[in-house]
C-alpha cells in the first residue's frame, strides 16, 4: 500500500496524542497550571494535528463532516465520533487542570476509554480489510494501542507504564514483522483464485501500459526497498531505546521529550512499513504485490 505521508503523520501523531490524553485523563500524572497547559496542550496538539493531516488524504476534505454519518458500520466513522467525543469530553477536564481546579482521578475515565476507542477504531480501519492480509489481524489494534499508550506514557512521564509498554512493544514488533510476512500466503489468494484461471497463470500484458490509481495506491513496491533497515530502526527507536531511557534515566522533561522523539522516529519507521509492506490482493491481477 502507498505509504501516504498524511496518513502516516495522522496515525502516529494522533495515536500518541490520544495515548497522552488517555494518561492525563486518568490523572497519571496529575498536572495543573502551566504543566497542565503544556501536557494537555501537547495531547490536544498531537491529536488534532494528526486529524488535520488525515484530511489531506481525502479527495474532497470539504465534505469531511459527512464522515460522521455511518458509525453503525464504518470504523472510519466510528473513529471520527470517538476522536471528537474524546476531545470534547476531555476539554473541561483539561481546562480545569489548566485553571488549577483539581478533578477527581476517575473523572476522566470515560475520556480515557474514548481515547483508546479512537485508537482502536483507527487500527480497525486497517485491520478490518480482508483485502490486505498483513493488516487483517487481531494484533494490529494491539500494536496501535501499545504504540499510542507507549508514546503517551513517555510524554506523560508515567515511568512504569512507559517502561512496561516499550518493553512489551519490542517483541510484539519483531513478531508482527515476521508473522506479517506470511499472512498473504496464509490467506491463500493467488492469481489463480483471483482469475479462476489455471493452472499457474501469469501476467502476459498489463491491462494498460500507463499506471493507474490502483497501482499507485495498492502496489507500492519501492517503499519496501529498505525494509530490513527500517524494521531495525523501528524496533530500536520505538521500543528498545525508549525502554532503556525510561528505565535508566530520570524522567526530567528534556529526557521525556528526547525519549518521545526517538520513539516517534521508530513509530514513523514502523508506520511507513505498515503501509509499504502491506500487500493488497488486487496486486495479484497485476502480477505484483
Amino acid at each position, binding site marked *: 500500500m502507498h505509504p501516504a505521508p498524511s496518513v502516516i503523520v495522522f496515525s502516529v501523531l494522533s495515536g500518541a496524542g490520544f495515548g497522552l490524553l488517555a494518561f492525563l485523563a486518568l490523572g497519571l500524572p496529575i498536572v495543573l497550571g502551566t504543566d497542565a497547559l503544556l501536557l494537555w496542550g501537547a495531547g490536544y496538539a498531537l491529536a488534532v494535528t494528526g486529524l488535520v493531516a488525515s484530511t489531506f488524504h481525502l479527495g474532497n476534505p470539504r465534505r469531511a463532516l459527512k464522515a460522521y454519518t455511518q458509525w453503525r458500520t*464504518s470504523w472510519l466513522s466510528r473513529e471520527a465520533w470517538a476522536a471528537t467525543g474524546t476531545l470534547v469530553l476531555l476539554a473541561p477536564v483539561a481546562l480545569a487542570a489548566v485553571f488549577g481546579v483539581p478533578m477527581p482521578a476517575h473523572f476522566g475515565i470515560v475520556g480515557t476509554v474514548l481515547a483508546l476507542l479512537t485508537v482502536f477504531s483507527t487500527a480497525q480501519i486497517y485491520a478490518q480489510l480482508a483485502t490486505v492480509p498483513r493488516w487483517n489481524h487481531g494484533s494490529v489494534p494491539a500494536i496501535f494501542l501499545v504504540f499510542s499508550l507507549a508514546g503517551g506514557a513517555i510524554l506523560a512521564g508515567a515511568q512504569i507504564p512507559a517502561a512496561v509498554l516499550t518493553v512489551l512493544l519490542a517483541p510484539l514488533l519483531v513478531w508482527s514483522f515476521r508473522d506479517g510476512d506470511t499472512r498473504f500466503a496464509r490467506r491463500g489468494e493467488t492469481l489463480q483464485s483471483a482469475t479462476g484461471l489455471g493452472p499457474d497463470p501469469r501476467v502476459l500484458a498489463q491491462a494498460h501500459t500507463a499506471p493507474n490509481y490502483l497501482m499507485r*495506491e495498492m502496489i507500492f513496491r519501492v517503499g519496501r526497498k529498505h525494509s530490513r533497515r527500517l524494521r531495525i530502526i523501528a524496533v530500536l527507536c520505538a521500543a528498545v531505546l525508549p525502554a532503556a531511557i525510561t528505565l535508566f534515566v530520570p524522567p526530567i522533561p528534556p529526557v521525556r521529550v528526547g525519549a518521545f522523539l526517538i520513539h516517534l522516529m521508530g513509530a514513523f519507521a514502523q508506520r511507513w512499513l505498515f503501509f509499504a509492506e502491506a500487500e493488497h490482493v488486487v496486486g495479484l491481477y497485476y502480477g505484483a504485490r
Partner: protein
Amino acid sequence: MTALPPPSARKLGLVIDLDTCVGCQACVTACKGWNDQGAGAPLSDMNAYGSEPCGTFLNRVHSYETQPVEGPAEVVNFPRSCLHCENAPCVTVCPTGASFKRAEDGIVLVNEDACIGCGLCAWACPYGARELDAAAGVMKKCTLCVDRIYNETLPEEDRVPACVRTCPTGARHFGDLGDPESAVSRLVAERGGYDLMPGMETKPVNKYLPPRRKGAAAAGPLDPLVDLEARGVAGWLDRILGAF
C-alpha cells in the same frame, strides 16, 4: 446508508465469457466514453499527453497466459470491473454513506455528492474495481450503467450497459442473476460460470465463464484412397474419378 440492504431478489450483473473475449479493449473505451459524459464527474486523464498519463477507467482488460498440463501455453483476456458483490465490503467501510448498494437490484454505486474521497472503499475491494478520480477527488466505479439500463429516453434494446452494447464478440452478457431462469443464469449454469476470489466472501454477482478446453479435435486419421507407392497417380486418378 452504508449498511447493506437485505439481499435483493433482482441481482443485476454481468457474465463475462473468457472463451470469447479477444481482448480488443472496446468495452474499455466504450465505458470510458459513456461515463465521461454521464452523471457525475468526468473520468479524468492526468498528464494526458505527457510522459506518464494516468486516467480513471472503470473497466480494464488484462491478458494472462496459462500453461495446461498438455499442449502449448494459452492466452486469456480478462476484463475486470465491479462485480456488484452481494456482500460488498466497499459499502460497509464507507464513512459517509456515499457508497451504497441498491436495495432494488443490488447495483453498487457511489453517491459522488457525499463522497469525501477517503479511498477506503477501494482498499476494501478485492477486485480493484474502484478508482479515485484525481481531478474530481471522488471515488469512481462501474455503475452497471444504471443511467442506461432503465433509461426511458433510450430505445428498449439499448437499455444495456455501454460495454455490453459495444462488445463486438458478444463476450459480455447482462441480466438478472437472481432469476435462475434468466438467460444469464442459464449461461452460468451451462458453462460453469464462477466467482472471483470466493475466499474473500464478497459473493460477487458478476460471473466469469471459463475458457473451453483447447487442443486437437478427436478426428480419426484419413485413409488413403489407394496405395500411392504401389499404384501411382494414375491408379489414384482411376479410383477417384471412377467413384465420381
